[in-house]
């Protein structure tokens, strides 16, 4: 649910980081928060998480400059990835304008990625949104582990599993090191704002 305020000449939209538990959604937001200066980002809010699992959501507001003389305000959210928290995921998805799907490259998480993507499609449908139409970007996270002992899916395999139908932009990344984090954010912001702009201002 984008909101355009002509008194402030401001566009507000909501981007949700989705994906399986432990995939790296919160780590993406933490990195963005750490790397951005204070005039660009607001305060990050994480709802009391015992340990590092998200129970409800993380929230980070950003001001991303302006286009067409309108300033852009983006609110980033993460959902809890654990399967049992679907009610919370549905709440966080309310009014979503764009989605980043953070996939876990670990081979053992293959089924979790597929299950989470199917769950995203279903929950979007619950909001009357179509996964093939909503701005969506994939991030294949934890590529920093590629040289280690733990078996990873290749980027091609991840593409085949998750993106063979969707054909959306995808980025390999490492949220913990920060690689791919801003590429992902830049792309999702660009296509989300573009869609909001087209939908709301050119009618």
């Amino acid at each position: 649910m984008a909101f355009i305020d002509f008194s402030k000449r401001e566009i507000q939209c909501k981007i949700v980081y989705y994906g399986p538990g432990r995939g790296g959604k919160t780590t993406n937001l933490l990195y963005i928060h750490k790397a951005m200066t204070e005039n660009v980002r607001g305060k990050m809010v994480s709802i009391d998480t015992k340990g590092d699992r998200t129970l409800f959501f993380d929230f980070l507001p950003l001001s991303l400059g302006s286009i067409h003389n309108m300033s852009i305000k983006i609110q980033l959210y993460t959902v809890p990835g654990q399967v049992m928290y679907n009610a919370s995921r549905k709440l966080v998805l309310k009014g979503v304008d764009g989605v980043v799907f953070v996939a876990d490259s670990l081979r053992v998480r293959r089924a979790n990625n597929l299950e989470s993507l199917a769950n995203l499609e279903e929950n979007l449908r619950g909001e009357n949104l179509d996964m093939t139409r909503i701005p969506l970007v994939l991030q294949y996270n934890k590529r920093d582990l590629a040289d280690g002992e733990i078996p990873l899916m290749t980027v091609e395999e991840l593409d085949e599993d998750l993106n063979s139908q969707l054909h959306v932009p995808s980025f390999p990344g490492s949220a913990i090191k920060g690689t791919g984090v801003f590429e992902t954010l830049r792309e999702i912001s660009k296509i989300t704002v573009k869609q909001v702009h087209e939908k709301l201002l050119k009618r």
Partner: protein
Amino acid sequence: MDLVLSKRDIEEMYKCISENLVREGADCVLLIDRAANLIVNCGNPMTLDVVSLAALSAANFGATAEIARIIGEEEFSLLFHKGRHENIHFTSVGENYILITLFGKDVSLGLIRLKVEKTIKKLQEILQRVES
């Protein structure tokens, strides 16, 4: 459900909130949508982190509505938290919006509820007009 508001719409809502609630003693009043977009921000919010407040309130309201559903209620249309110095009152404005009113211990809840009701009626008129 997207929302586009002109300067005039915003000013009209601001005026309505300011006359009905802030003038009656509310410290700060926010109108947000259920996606936590901050639509109108009125009163004395300078020292407040209104963006976080909006995000948490929308989530809180959504979570409470879900709790209501689980126990077989349609929705709790009103939420109220009482603090030592400051109170906060949440009311739904139609299906898509939430009005958040902060007021101090010297202002009565009864008065706030009365004024909130009046404000919501007027806000709904405006919102219905801009949505159509």
